[in-house]
């Protein structure tokens, strides 16, 4: 259940931010797309919208919210699941609901407001998607929004990290069917997050070489993953020298996309935006470096599996 951000701007009279702090992490989000904008169908802007913030602590974003709901840490999945039950008029015991840190009345009030909205939107951040339960927390948010469509219009959208994560996701999907966590070793794409996702491969030590483009796993990943990057050959392409560069065998400084290299960035709602470079760079673009690596590899004997055809082993 999703939509482009213009739909939020023009129509969303009910906005929930869950496990994110847009006031500090996505500072333009409120003003450009969601909260303060006057929309085509919301002529009074902020006054025509209700904003709810759900988080484990009272962040800067809480000041902007009409309603702040402080969920007990690690209870997002439980809270979302209760909301799903209440949306369907199922009974939930008050004492069971209390474990979320909120009262059953507060949760029922939220459900009533969600159902009464003309166009609701649920933005969820890493406070939801990266805490215990991970993808199931995201699934809970998406399912809740989907089920609300039996009553009104409701969409859900993840607030993702920095950089063109969405763009990578989009291109992987159209070239290889899957958004991430893809294995090509059999000559065709296979998908299994947890098995083929980068962090899991590195932690288990399943790889014997790594190319890192526009990311800094050396700064963000768990220790065993970083140790594996050190132990095996690692190549980094980045406009600057990163933590990962320091533990890599090879570092290429590349032109910064959007500043000195052209390209397309995808907004969080998958709307593509052209990037027009303002500056010239003495460095090659990521694309050019990769093309040269590919050309060099093509001089080696072509690798391909001897057995082609048949069903996938996946």
């Amino acid at each position, binding site marked *: 259940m999703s939509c*482009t951000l213009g739909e939020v701007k023009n129509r969303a009279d009910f906005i929930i931010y869950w496990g994110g702090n847009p006031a500090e992490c996505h500072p333009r989000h409120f003003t450009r797309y969601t909260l303060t904008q006057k929309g*085509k169908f919301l002529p009074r802007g902020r006054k025509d919208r209700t904003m709810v913030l759900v988080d484990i602590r009272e962040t800067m974003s809480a000041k902007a919210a009409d309603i702040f709901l402080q969920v007990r840490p690690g209870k997002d999945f439980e809270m979302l699941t209760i909301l799903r039950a209440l949306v369907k008029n199922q009974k939930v015991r008050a004492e069971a609901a209390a474990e979320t840190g909120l009262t059953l009345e507060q949760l029922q009030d939220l459900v009533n407001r969600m159902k009464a909205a003309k166009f609701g939107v649920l933005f969820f951040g890493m406070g939801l998607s990266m805490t215990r339960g991970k993808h199931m927390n995201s699934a809970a948010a998406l399912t809740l929004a989907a089920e609300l469509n039996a009553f009104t219009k409701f969409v859900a959208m993840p607030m993702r990290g920095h950089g063109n994560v969405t763009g990578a996701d989009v291109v992987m999907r159209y070239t290889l069917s*899957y958004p991430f966590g893809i294995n090509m070793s059999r000559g065709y794409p296979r998908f299994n997050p947890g098995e083929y996702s980068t962090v899991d491969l590195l932690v288990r030590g399943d790889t014997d070489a790594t190319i890192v483009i526009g990311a800094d796993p050396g700064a963000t990943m768990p220790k065993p993953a970083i140790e594996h990057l050190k132990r095996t050959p690692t190549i980094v392409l980045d406009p600057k020298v990163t933590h990962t560069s320091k533990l890599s065998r090879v570092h290429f400084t590349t032109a910064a996309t959007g500043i000195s290299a052209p390209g397309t960035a995808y907004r969080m709602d998958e709307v593509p935006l052209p990037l027009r470079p303002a500056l010239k760079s003495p460095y090659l673009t990521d694309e050019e470096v990769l093309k040269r690596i590919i050309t060099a590899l093509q001089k080696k004997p072509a690798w391909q599996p001897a057995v082609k055809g048949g069903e996938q082993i996946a």
Partner: protein
Amino acid sequence: MLRITGGKVYDPKNGVRGEIRDVCIAGGKIVSDVPPHARTIDASGMIVFPGGVDVHTHVAGAALNFARGLIPEQHRKSRPIFHTPQCRAGLAGSTPTTFATGYVYAGMGWTTANEAAVPILSAKHTHEELADTPIIDKCCCVLMANNEIILDLLETAEFERAKQVAAWQVWAAKAYGVKAVNPGGVAGWKWGKDCKGLNEPVPGYKNVTPRSIIKALADIIDQLALPHPLHIHCNNLGAPGNYTTTLETMKALEGNRAHMAHLQYHSYGGDDWFTMKSASVPIAEYFNAHPNLTCDAGAVLFGDTVTITADGPWQHLLYELTGRKWGNLDVENETGCGVVPYVYKEKNLVNAIQWAVGLELLLLITDPWRVCLTTDHPNGATFWRYPEIVRLLMDREFRKEQLKHIPEKVLSRIVLPDLDREYTLSEIAIITSAGPARTLGLAQKGHLGIGADADVAVFNERKDAMEMFSYPRFVIKSGQLIIEEGELRNSIEGSQFASKPTYDSAIEDYLRPLFSQHYTMSFENYPVTEECVHGLNVHQCGSCTQPG
């Protein structure tokens, strides 16, 4: 240079019906002769067709790509496309990857495809995907019937300005034609509502009705002299009893050219899911008598697929009916889309009727030039299953055999058992190539006359049409040999066709302020630049004709 010799040539546009003659190719075109040293392909015992043309398919764009992300379980069971020196890796299945799409279309002798639904806001993305779709030539239709700028202009009866905006939008999206999906209904869906009849005002408007949108867009397209007529997906898709809406829509289009997309989904009688029946007879009767219309079948085959359409309300209904996954993506001010994985089951009453209706329309419409073979890929079935439909059309006995598998109580609700027509190879060449090329207004496609694009498919002549059309022996695209002895030996880039209607550039001054008010991207970033479109081939439309 290439000479194909000894094959039975089917070139309906030029009146050639299975004659043994040579087809000569040079410089990417069909020529009258080539020198003796040119490579010769012996096509004895084979048939020679112009490359297939798909008038309505969904092979690229944000909606399809959204669907790809939703169905990993289908991808896992799909046919893998192995990485080789000629091929990029990918998966076929119900939503083939971009590279796979090119290989698989070419691999069954189809060389041109029209992506039928592109929102302007994400047109840049669609073109990125099409650029990565090799071998085949492509064009696309931009979505307009729920575009709020156009609808607002129709509300205040500013037809001339709406026409200018439409012309600007076609070129901004680098589109070839214009598609109307559930006119007004998708705009209504954004409030969780829909438009069922043609005469009720669209939610949020006083004067605009689906009928007024349809008429205005058809007039605009005819006056802009776009090569392809209004491509219309009627209101009320998939609903029992919807054939009356379809008839009304066709009547509203009298005096205009129009292409009725996936007509199968719009030809149902009955009052509800329990009484649903085929209404292909009244639809075909009206259609046969009105040469201003063309259509494509949107046929259904049994099996797993995923349904994707800009028709958000229909998709929500389908989700409630199936209780399976559902994805929805609304695009600001322009359109929306829904995605639901679906299995068409032989034993399901509704699915069996849908299967029959698609075939009935293909058999009841008398002029093959006006009906194109499609499955509304991937909605009715994936495009690589077209050869199954060809067999059903060519082989009455096979059809009778298949009818035994569907529930008996369906038989009284369909007319398929009474239809004895069998398609000839010439007629197959028309509905798969010559007809759709003519409908699209692509004069260089769909035939093997001198000067035509050298897109040729050569098949072993066999009794089983499905086997024959599944595995061509040779496929030539733009004069290049792509498939040789049934194997993909070469991959090339295809072209993209776009239309450029005439408009007054002052319309940008009108659009710019509306943009900053209603959109979330800057006006300058909105149009797709010519550099973004690989192999762009522009059709300059005649000057705007005034209503006479």
